[in-house]
């Protein structure tokens, strides 16, 4: 049910965001080859590798701790994000989202994992890109729906836990609020419980949870 029509709506801070970013970190930071990403992303456009209207590739690798290489689609942006000096892959849902807050979160997580899996697959031969599967960063780049406040943090974490249960089962996760206070609400998630998950396992968990 939508959080917006829940009986306690007036006391709630959040509504369903149009935009939300989810990031996975790359395992081997040193070996990550930025220039190669430009080729991969151009090929993805040729092959329609991901769902959506894929528009263009944009190179920001000259910007330190910037968005790296960006694949722009009408519905989302995908970047080899270098924020905080740690390279990863960030999927940011930009528009055309529908459903409740947790449905949208689920969709964003599943889309990121699929893109990450595609990247692992397409680089499998030489210098493969691999992702850390026990950490994620969530960035709520829609302050109207999810303001960067403690109250929003309190409300959003249970929603995220629900989504992540589909991936990590019972393994507990913890959230830390990171970044600048005037930045978007940004949460660093770590799995604290035991267990190892492959990207493929996470993808299928996310997809079945997102329906």
């Amino acid at each position, binding site marked *: 049910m939508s959080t917006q029509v829940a009986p306690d709506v007036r006391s709630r801070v959040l509504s369903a965001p149009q935009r939300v970013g989810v990031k996975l970190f790359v395992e081997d930071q040193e070996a990550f080859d930025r220039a190669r990403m*430009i080729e991969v992303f151009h090929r993805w456009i040729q092959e329609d590798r991901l769902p959506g209207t894929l528009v263009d590739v944009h190179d920001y690798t000259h910007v330190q701790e910037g968005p790296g290489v960006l694949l722009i689609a009408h519905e989302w942006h995908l970047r080899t994000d270098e924020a905080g000096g740690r390279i990863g892959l960030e999927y940011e849902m930009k528009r055309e989202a529908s459903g409740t807050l947790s449905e949208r979160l689920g969709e964003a997580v599943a889309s990121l994992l699929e893109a990450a899996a595609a990247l692992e697959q397409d680089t499998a031969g030489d210098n493969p890109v691999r992702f850390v599967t026990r950490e994620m960063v969530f960035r709520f780049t829609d302050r109207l729906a999810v303001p960067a406040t403690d109250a929003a943090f309190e409300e959003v974490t249970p929603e995220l836990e629900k989504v992540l249960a589909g991936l990590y089962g019972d393994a507990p996760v913890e959230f830390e609020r990171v970044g600048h206070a005037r930045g978007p609400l940004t949460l660093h998630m770590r799995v604290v419980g035991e267990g190892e998950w492959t990207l493929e396992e996470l993808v299928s968990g996310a997809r079945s949870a997102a329906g």
Partner: protein
Amino acid sequence: MGVEQQNPMTTNGSGQAPEPRAWKARLGSRLGEKLSREIDSFEGQIEQKRAGKLTDEVFAEMRLRRGVYGQRYDNGQRHDGVSSRELVFPNAELTKGPGTLWDAPGMVRIKNPFGALTADQMDVLAEVSEEYADGILHVTTRQDIQLHFVHLEETPDLMRRLGVVGITTHEACGNAVRNVTACHLSGVCTTQTFDVTPYAAAVSDFLLGHPDAQEFGRKVKPAFSGCADRPCGLVKMHDIGGIARVREVDGVERRGFEFYVGGGLGAVPHQAELFDEFLPEEELLPICQSISRVFARLGEKDVRSRARLKFLVAKLGIEEFRRLVLEDRAGLTEDSRWTAFLDDVHKGHDGPLWQIEKKRDKLTPSPQLEAWLGTSVTQQRQPGYKVVMIYLPLGDITADQIRGLADVARRFTGDAVRMTVEQNLAFRWVRESDLSALHEALEELALADPRAETLTDITACPGTDTCKLGISSSRGLARTLMDHLETRGEELDEVVRGLRIKISGCFNSCGQHHMADIGFWGVSRKRNGYNVPHFQVVLGGQWAENAGSYGLAIVAVPGRNIPAATDRIIQYYVDEREGDEGFKAFVTRVGKASLRTLLQDLTEVPAYEQDRSFYSNWGDPREFTLGDMGVGECAGQIVSPVEFGLQASEREIFSAQDRLDQGDFNGAADIAYGAMLIAARTLAREKEIGLGEDPEAVVAAFKTHLFDPGLFHDPFAGGKFGNYLFRVHRERKNGFEATPSRARQRIEEAQLFIEAAHSYHVRTAETVSV
């Protein structure tokens, strides 16, 4: 990373539920009433367009005036490297301009008079860039900021949020008075006559939305400079420009401006003409108003490529233009705003923003700090303070970085900073004692690169990355060159480290390549049956003296070979310069011919099978195509292919003139002939779509479709200009030996032929433009 203090000026939520679910309601009265109404009206127009109640042309002009531009591929077509593909957007049928799809990502230009930015503005810019754009703010060569990949429907909220901190996008684009620029050092500069900031602000406020400045055929770009010698204001390449001057009148020191009009870059660059040696300060606004009125009344409206003020000034001559402006000025109704701002100017003080503390922070030496102090810190006119330059690679900065910089600005500059025309940021009023701490703070934000205003601080226009007119990838080349020169680092001779490189993706010169020591602009050349991205090499432009003169076009080199060409040019200068000869003087002395010889072998393009990289742009693995170019909509109307062709022919005239100056008379005559052919072909192709480049076929088609039916005939001169083409074509076939005077004559005839082509286009514009 800790969570720091909340700042009240952001548009973040307060956290106290319930929050309104729309920005308009949430921001409420924080947005001024006038601006609020203006943005509501734009939102209404978006709705009307959606409902089919506005035409594409009208709506395009409406959004451009608000700084909402199109971007590459917004016609829904993109070549993916294998084939041209349609971009299928949800609102596939809806358009936001002629041939411009509703959902296609666009650009928003934000206008910041003289490039000033407050910390609060930086905070909100960070927010809007990460929410509505791609998380990057791009500082332009005219002290504006651009956001890319923005959706039309999100622009009203974006504008509202910016409005809260006093930023407008109004008249950032369109046929209007654009951002008023000024040297980033004004107020703190050691060589300034006086601080031009309040004058730039007054012109900006006065002309924004002024009824006399709404009916232009094209944009007007004003600029101010505090002194004549340094480049920061670039007055002489602007439509309207003032250099600060003082003069003693009846024993009293009076302020005024050495005032220029009619400069501009673009396809046909013009140096501005001197309008008045000393325009008294109280006359500044009325004269700007009268210039606007004369331009609105007499400026070209139909043919975009002739519509800038520079063409009107050239056409009338500066004396006549001045007479008309002064005549108009004499008839203006007095306006209290003309001088109201002067009270504040004279009350204003040049004093420090901070108390200097006695105790000086000891600088903890490190090689990084040393390098940074050497290149990025300069003296300020007020003792004890420094100006610190912050290098932004290609003018780009992330939302996180600018948010961090807002904190740094609050801490070290007393708030405001300025953007520079070299796409960097200037921190002013930094206490000497704070330098070490500031450096540390910048290092934390990855913004302490000591490159600002050096050889590897390369300026580039957006080019093929986002601009619809881009031919070669200016940013791709800039990135490659920066890396290339950076790896050469230490081995580069000291004398070349201060040279400037500037790159444009096409002849429009947005990257200001004409004024660089080493400039490049994108062109395409047919080689081995393929289109190959090239850059025209332009050397010896004058950055100093407010862009005092433009560079010499040498030769077009394939993009792949530009790093090698740059190395050679630099080395040639290092080896051959005489004494402490500057680069411009060196280029003039050695001459174009020797520079062309130096680069000649680099103009070769290997066969496609041998090296495919030549057939792609830097940073883009797709095979090069011109198919992605669109029609430029930077100023409201659409640039038709005819105008492009005619501009191309004019550029050739430029090169012919160059050849003539060097004494290559046959070369000059040949190029002039080529220019006529381009113009003839451009017009004839409208009638015969498949017309190729064979001169015989072009002349025949021109004759059949334009000359014989009398269409090309001048109302007064009849077939005279058309006949020039036939005669020159004949002479050329029969062998033509050029003398200096015959070469000059041929250039003049070519010029007249092209003028006649423009006139024909004006006469028929109604029926032929897109």
